């Protein structure tokens, strides 16, 4: 029998990771979703429709950009940015939301719900809900509503109801729990648009399938510009959807190193971080078995990151598999370094990155200095940084 590979989860698992750890009430919906997704994936008309929306609504393909001044600053290695910040609504999240909205319409669901941390996925969900005429409720923690207030206003303007989540750490983890509770209650009428490669099967696979367009495009673009592949691909990892999105196309290119950058917050040793793979161990949160920040009793720990989008104690199960098989190396970058990279990229390139990919940009700098002028680095610039201006000013 073939070894389970990242591209083909076996029984809903990537190696040991994944599964469906949810209340019985949701099992029927997950089984239906899995069937519907496989059916839609194989349906040429669905794919054509998706391609049309990706082009005219999302704005794909997004460019590959040679960051020449960053390259010089880092000592000469070539740094390219995959410009997901140029997607409509300002981040890669819309790639996934458009696909899932089409699926919701196909399933006859009139209402969608979403969780959001940085607000980018919430905005993406509210945007597709407006575009396809669906009702939309977005769950967001109080703390995130404060630090991402502009996105809250955007969601409301788009017609979504934003529900403030006051429980627990008041961030993405609790917003996700609340969204799942809504789904348990309204599963017959509602589709849950999960924003990352997390949650129960088939979400990690489905969101991966919808985000892999990032890497598919970037690999072709890189080859057509340079005639060869990058030495290393770097992406930030919270739940991990932009990273899986760009990594997937390169998984079989053994000569290309892949690096996932988690949020080290105030330092992994400080305990105030969100680096699930670097600093956690396997467990179950939000329906899947993966790496998790938890205490000895299996209680999920509070996390910290300056970036709301990375401030999550879990990570997608495919990342757990890629970590254990060592195909991807996972590292962590602090708030301080991410902030410096944010400012550096803004000043040198005239591109204001979100704080999430600023973690990846910092690490690209570390790699560039090691590699020297011959190095070739591709970074996933997963979103734009306008939403982070308050955090940056404060920091």
């Amino acid at each position, binding site marked *: 029998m073939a070894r389970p590979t990242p591209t083909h989860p076996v029984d809903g698992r990537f190696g040991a990771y994944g599964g469906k750890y949810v209340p*019985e*009430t949701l099992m029927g919906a997950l089984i239906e979703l899995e069937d519907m997704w496989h059916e839609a994936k194989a349906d040429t008309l669905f794919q054509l429709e998706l391609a049309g929306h990706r082009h005219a609504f999302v704005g794909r393909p997004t460019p590959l950009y040679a960051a020449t001044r960053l390259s010089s600053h880092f000592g000469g290695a070539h740094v390219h940015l995959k410009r997901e910040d140029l997607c409509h609504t300002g981040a890669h999240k819309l790639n996934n939301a458009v696909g899932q909205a089409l699926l919701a319409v196909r399933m006859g669901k009139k209402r969608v719900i979403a969780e959001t941390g940085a607000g980018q996925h919430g905005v993406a969900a509210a945007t597709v809900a407006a575009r396809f005429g669906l009702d939309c409720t977005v769950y967001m923690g109080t703390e995130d509503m404060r630090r991402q207030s502009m996105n809250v206003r955007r969601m409301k303007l788009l017609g979504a109801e934003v529900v403030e989540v006051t429980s627990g750490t008041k961030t993405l983890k609790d917003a996700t729990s609340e969204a799942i509770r809504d789904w348990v209650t309204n*599963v017959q009428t509602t589709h849950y648009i999960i924003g990352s490669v997390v949650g129960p099967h088939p979400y990690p696979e489905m969101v991966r399938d919808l985000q892999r367009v990032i890497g598919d495009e970037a690999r072709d673009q890189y080859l057509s510009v340079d005639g060869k592949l990058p030495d290393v691909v770097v992406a930030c990892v919270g739940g991990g959807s932009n990273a899986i999105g760009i990594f997937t196309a390169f998984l079989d290119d053994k000569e290309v190193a892949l690096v996932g950058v988690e949020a080290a917050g105030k330092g992994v040793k400080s305990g105030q971080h969100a680096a699930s793979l670097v600093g956690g161990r396997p467990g179950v*949160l939000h329906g899947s078995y993966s790496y998790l920040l*938890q205490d000895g009793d299996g209680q999920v720990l509070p996390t910290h990151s300056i970036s709301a989008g990375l401030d999550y104690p879990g990570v997608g199960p495919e990342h757990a598999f890629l970590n254990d098989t060592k195909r991807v190396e996972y590292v962590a970058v602090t708030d301080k370094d991410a902030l410096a990279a944010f400012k550096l990229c803004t000043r040198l390139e005239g591109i204001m990155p979100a704080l999430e990919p600023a973690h990846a940009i910092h690490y690209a700098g570390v790699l560039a200095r090691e590699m020297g002028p011959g190095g070739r680095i591709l970074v996933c610039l997963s979103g734009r940084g306008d939403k982070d201006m308050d955090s940056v000013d404060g920091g």
Partner: protein
Amino acid sequence: MVAERTRLEDALRAKGDLKLVAYMMAGHPNKKRSIEVGKRLAGSGIAALEIGIPFSDPLADGPVIQRAGQVALEHGMNVTAALEVASSIATEGVPVVLMTYINPILAHDPRRFAAEAAQAGVTGVIVPDLPVEESEPVAGWLRSASLDTVFMVAPTTAEDRMATICEHSSGFVYCVTVTGITGARKELPAGMKELFEQVRRHTQLPIAAGFGISRPEHMKALRGTADAAVVGSAIVNEIDQGRDPVALVKELLKGCR
């Protein structure tokens, strides 16, 4: 699957009267008080007691049980301490069923959890985020420690999965009556009776109805259809308000007869 009838199964089978299962959270409002409350509940005429072990992210629970779990965690409740609570209450003779989420069990080690639960005098375990498809090896360890594995059936469960769930269950089958999370509701949902009838086609085990059940009139409605009713949030709310939950249990029991 023909298995020997278990103590839990015997306790929950309705014989004319509807049986009542009460739920409480270990460590709520604190460990000592939860043992006292549990002992009082044990002698109040209930057929079995469910004891919750708190988890930081309880996906199947509404606000009342979430809050109780949070309070218990703040007081340092964990699996080991909850088993001490369960053990103290089980000596009163009431069948004790543990209810917790999969992650605390995984962190404790499922094999050790099963052995220690059996040693504490527990009769069965319910894990609401562990559907039958994912239940091994945890359920295997529970069975080998002679603990009942109670699985849930929901209004959204398809017929073919219902058969599998019943096959994997022992002690009783937990029928989630509402499409939703735990928490007291005014009205019981329509279609409940049909759900019980459907489940009965797949099992000889007693059927306990749970989620949203809180009032004596709910008991009356369930009598003659389900074997037992599980009341959770309404009892936890009494404990939370510092009241003796036995008064509510007595009211509910009147509706069972």
